[in-house]
């Protein structure tokens, strides 16, 4: 499992707009770097990131090599109900990472 750090408020009021922060370990090899002997380091990046809230998609990003190593995203979502927010990253060479966070909505 790739290392990731997630920040989701544990509790929120119904209807509140909450910030979510995500950080995942990934070198994001751009595919544009060369060794000193002229060989290209092949591209190896995360290409997709999706957040779902009790199964419903609330955020989606398509990443290109211009996203910095150890991709970081902050975004917002409405605290509609208690449940699970799931985060999934996919990328080159079959990269896959899944994290979950629980939220209590009052």
């Amino acid at each position, binding site marked *: 499992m790739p290392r990731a750090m997630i920040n989701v408020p544990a509790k929120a009021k119904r209807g509140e707009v909450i910030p979510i922060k995500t950080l995942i370990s990934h070198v994001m090899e*751009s595919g544009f770097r060369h060794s000193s002997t002229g060989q290209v380091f092949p591209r190896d990046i995360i290409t997709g990131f999706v957040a779902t809230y009790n199964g419903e998609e609330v955020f989606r990003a398509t990443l290109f090599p211009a996203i910095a190593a150890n991709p970081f995203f902050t975004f917002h979502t409405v605290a509609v109900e208690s449940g699970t927010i799931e985060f999934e990253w996919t990328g080159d060479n079959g990269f896959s990472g899944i994290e979950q966070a629980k939220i209590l909505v009052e």
Partner: protein
Amino acid sequence: MLVPSAAATPATMQAAIASVIRGAKVNPGKIKLDIPPLVENGNTVPCSITVDSPMTEVDYVKAIHVFTEKNPQPNVVSIQLGPRAGRASVSTRIRLADTQTVVAIAELSDGSLWSHRVDVLITLGACLEDS
């Protein structure tokens, strides 16, 4: 006659933008691209995008796209949002190869397109490692 340098790809950026907007008109405004004007290291540049939108079921931001002019590739990120976002405010970290212009475009639910262009100055660290 001015000849563009090999690294600069404003034409490629225009082409990348064109494939997203598909001939529709883009107006400046509503979207704000926040990047520090002077960047310590182009490898990791904090970047925030906010769009002035109520994010209701009938009036919301569908997508945000970011492009660069002088990176080896013009696309940076494409983000899909919806009314569930509550606020069209996203932050990430991007790579900027050189001092250049960065463009962010917002697609709204009514089909309108809005843009913001920012010039960024990249300084490099003084003591670099040999590759």
